[in-house]
């Protein structure tokens, strides 16, 4: 079971580092606050428009903070040439990929939870009507984002103009996930059962599976010397 152990140790390392430094989490928290202000200014005091646009706004917030967070995914590896150490790890390196995806997923979910709370408080919106359904939708969407985001973050980590290239590559590819997540969130917030958006959830699940599979199969090629 060394594969599981290696996945776990990568996750452990990332979570431990983040808990100690809190760099990314702090930055993302303030970013989330900023987004909130931006949305307020952009949509004004028109509550109807806000409620109608809410699913889109939520996911816009998730994606933007996700971009910032994922962009830093391999930042620690660039310090002290740790990247080199990862290159020379024996055996299947896809364990590193899964560990990184798990870490990024947890980080993104945390920030999304914060954003949800901020939205509920500042825009006086009831999001807690069907928490389980919301969690399922947000989980599926975020997983898709983290799966491809981690892969692309690894690819662009050492490319010049990485800060521009990373979102340029990631966002168009993520359109299905974004559409599916927004539509499903919209339905959940309207009180509809998950079955009503079964096709969207199916799309999200398919996308997640495809992305993770490709990631696991190709990460070795990215982390090659």
């Amino acid at each position, binding site marked *: 079971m060394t594969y599981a152990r*290696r996945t776990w*140790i990568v996750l*452990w390392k990332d979570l431990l580092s983040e808990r100690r430094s809190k760099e990314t989490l702090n930055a993302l928290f303030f970013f989330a606050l900023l987004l909130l202000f931006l949305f307020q200014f952009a949509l004004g005091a028109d509550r109807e428009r806000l409620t109608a646009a809410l699913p889109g706004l939520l996911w816009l917030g998730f994606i933007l903070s996700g971009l910032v967070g994922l962009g830093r995914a391999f930042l*620690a590896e660039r310090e*002290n040439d740790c990247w*080199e150490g*990862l290159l020379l790890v024996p055996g299947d390196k896809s364990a*590193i990929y899964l560990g990184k995806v798990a870490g990024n997923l947890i980080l993104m979910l945390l920030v999304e939870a914060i954003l949800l709370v901020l939205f509920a408080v500042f825009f006086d919106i009831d999001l807690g009507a069907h928490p389980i359904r919301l969690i399922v939708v947000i989980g599926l969407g975020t997983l898709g984002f983290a799966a491809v985001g981690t892969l692309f973050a690894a690819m662009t980590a050492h490319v010049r103009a990485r800060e521009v290239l990373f979102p340029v590559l990631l966002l168009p590819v993520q359109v299905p996930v974004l559409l599916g997540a927004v539509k499903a969130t919209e339905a959940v917030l309207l009180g509809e059962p998950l079955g009503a958006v079964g096709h969207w959830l199916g799309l999200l699940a398919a996308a997640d599976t495809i992305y993770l599979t490709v990631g696991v199969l190709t990460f070795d090629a990215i982390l090659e*010397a």
Partner: protein
Amino acid sequence: MAANPPIQVIGLRKAFGAHVVLDDVSLEVRPGEAVALVGPNGAGKTTVLRILATLLRPSRGTARVAGYDCAQETERVRAHVGLLAHGTWVYEDLTPLENLKFWATLGGLPRGLDALHGALAAVDLDRVADERVRTFSLGMKRRLALARVVLARPPVLLLDEPHAGLDQRAGKWLDGHLGGFKAAGGAILMTTHSFGRGLGVADRIAILTAGRLAFDAPLHGLTPDDVRRLYELHAENGG
């Protein structure tokens, strides 16, 4: 000569596009021997190390570690090589113990607390095993990198300017360690700029200029001044 010398490089050539970094380099390191690769900046010293560490593929020629080809049998080579490069592979927010645990688990090395503490003790970092690395000096971080190698116990060590940034005490300490490694039968190839400290442990010196090996002979009997003169003779004129 042993059938499989720990380090063997034959006719090595490496070009990046039109830029030729190494041209027909041949070199061997025997067990229990330390070879210092000396040369000016850009001579290709680090490139030789990186090819042996399987981080780069040669354009032509062969590089072998313990008989395994560095380009074709990378996994086997990696299991036999310890690399101490410019980067220390250290995560600043973790403690030495946690750093070692991470690399040990990923590398399939002994992970038990005893083994980890033992390695830290060998590099004299045991007392600070639970402090965050961010507070460490460069010398301490280098020692942590060495602890990683101690844990792995490879038969071959590749060191890229190991004395750079170390003070006198740390440098002496490193030499002591490398001496012990040699005595246990390990082979060392290290690159260096300096003639005094850098050569302390070396048994042979090889001068690399502009991608070619200009000089390769035992250090026995040569003073640091002799070495400097040889270096100036070859390095400045060569290429």
